[in-house]
């Protein structure tokens, strides 16, 4: 309780009001959209939240631990398929299914880590990408999971709708994503402000130096990977809940999952806790609006939505390499929270302690 109180103390003032304000907005927006019958913005909001979950998860491994994964769609895909298969073949409610999917993804993450964590950045990235492509190729001919056509969850009767998390319209799904994001934020906040979080950063900064300080890099990379894969897998499950469909090309897509989430994290700023969320909320609306307003009207221009993101990323990488949050930090608008006891503020450290 002492700890909880001291954590809450951290949020007094502007920061606390900002969080409350944004949370209120996010809670009220779906209701607003539903009342005004605006399914498209609602869907964009849903995707922003979904990618926020995944980008934050990815960034735990990269921004904090220094491991650059190009294969995170593996976890998304496994989580999605697990949830779908649970629903279709085992009558398992997706409310549980997404967590089962998350755990399966987490376990696969550990497996991946065992094999790949000995590799340094280039190779880890390439190998994770290759393994992801393998998953894609293995799922395509696999009939039990629907092969290349994928799996579709049928519409169920209203009395089973709650059990199968089936709602009309995109609106209520937003709350599911919001809920998971909130859980993720809390868990990750505790992790990154603990010994684990500091050890992650030490590994990122200099693995050999970290070793001299008693840190076992492999062990902590595995911890980071566990949580990273866990939430990415859960996100896959949420995708299935919302869209009721999954196929290998969606699940194990290099560009629309793996690259998109790293792009989101980078646009927002990888060295910032909420950077990935900021990034998702910037890039998702752009790509979705281009896709829906231009590409679907003029299918001839298919690809434009990805092109525009490429452009955004390029610009960011050239003028703001540490993302939007990095830019804000440089301008002194925000300040990175130091690895100091949660009870103290930066100010107190300087003055006394």
């Amino acid at each position: 309780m002492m700890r909880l109180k001291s954590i809450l103390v951290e949020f007094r003032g502007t920061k606390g009001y900002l969080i409350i304000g944004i949370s209120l907005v996010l809670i009220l927006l779906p209701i607003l959209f539903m009342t005004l019958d605006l399914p498209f913005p609602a869907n964009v909001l849903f995707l922003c939240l979904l990618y926020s979950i995944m980008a934050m998860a990815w960034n735990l491994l990269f921004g904090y631990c220094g491991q650059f994964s190009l294969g995170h769609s593996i976890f998304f895909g496994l989580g999605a398929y697990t949830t779908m298969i649970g629903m279709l073949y085992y009558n398992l409610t997706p409310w549980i299914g997404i967590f089962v999917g998350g755990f399966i993804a987490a376990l696969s993450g550990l497996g991946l880590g065992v094999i790949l964590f000995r590799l340094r950045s280039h190779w880890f990235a390439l190998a994770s990408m290759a393994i992801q492509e393998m998953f894609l190729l293995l799922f395509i001919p696999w009939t039990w999971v629907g092969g290349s056509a994928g799996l579709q969850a049928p519409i169920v009767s209203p009395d089973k709708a709650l059990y199968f998390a089936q709602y009309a319209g995109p609106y209520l799904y937003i709350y599911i994503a919001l809920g998971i994001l909130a859980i993720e934020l809390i868990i990750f906040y505790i992790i990154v402000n603990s010994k684990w979080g500091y050890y992650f950063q030490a590994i990122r900064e200099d693995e050999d130096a970290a070793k001299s300080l008693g840190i076992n890099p492999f062990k902590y990379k595995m911890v980071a990977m566990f949580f990273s894969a866990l939430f990415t897998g859960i996100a896959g499950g949420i995708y299935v809940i919302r869209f009721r469909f999954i196929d290998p090309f969606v699940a194990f897509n290099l560009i629309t999952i793996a690259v998109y989430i790293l792009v989101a994290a980078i646009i927002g700023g990888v060295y910032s806790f909420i950077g990935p969320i900021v990034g998702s909320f910037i890039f998702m609306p752009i790509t979705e609006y281009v896709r829906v307003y231009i590409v679907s009207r003029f299918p001839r221009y298919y690809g434009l939505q990805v092109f525009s993101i490429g452009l955004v990323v390029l610009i960011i990488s050239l003028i703001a390499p540490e993302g939007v949050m990095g830019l804000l930090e440089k301008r002194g608008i925000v300040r990175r929270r130091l690895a100091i006891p949660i009870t103290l503020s930066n100010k107190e450290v300087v003055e006394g302690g």
Partner: protein
Amino acid sequence: MDEILKCDGVTKRFGGLVAVDNVSISVKKGEFVGLIGPNGAGKTTLFNCISGYYKPDKGRIYFKGMNVTGKPPYVLAKLGMGRTFQIVKPLPRLTVLENVIISALLKTEDIEDAYKKAVDMLDYVGLRDKMLLPARSLNVAEKKKLELARALALDPELLLLDEVVAGLNPTETDNMLNLLRDIHKKGHTIIMVEHVMRAVMNVSERIIVLHHGKVIAEGTPSEVANNPQVIEVYLGKEVV
């Protein structure tokens, strides 16, 4: 256990090159030992073997009586071995304070305690006023002090210092040496690899000389300085 570190016939090869050749040394608890030798003598390689970064091809290493040959650095840190690096390795983006907190977290789970210890260490080495700066913004002397503070925050029994005064001007060097003397007085065992003769000769109780990976002399600083083999090996090199 009087003997804190023992190397028994340690050999390390890189391809065809024998960097450390059948080296056997013994260090007693509380000693201040200097490890010298010309460039390429194998000093840092020996350090890397002792501190777990390399696995010796032959021989054994005993720390506090335990066989630690081939054990990784993080295990040795937990057992009480701290080291600094020849080319300093700060955790660059993190602040000086955070660098030492992370180190202090080895011995305590409580961040509050780690923080207090870190501040104490930084006070001790004289980096208190630079606490909140990113480690990469420090100059060389300050970075070396940071390495020292980090190593000390581990509560080590044995300190391995790799060229800790290299690159420092005379004032900074004296500063550092006084620090080391004090650390030694507090009961830590120190093994110091060094090139700067003035430094290592002035502060060590005992000197071990390596050449081509072999131990060629051992003794007090004056004994070693007058050893004809050592003089020959250093002939033509500056002995400050």
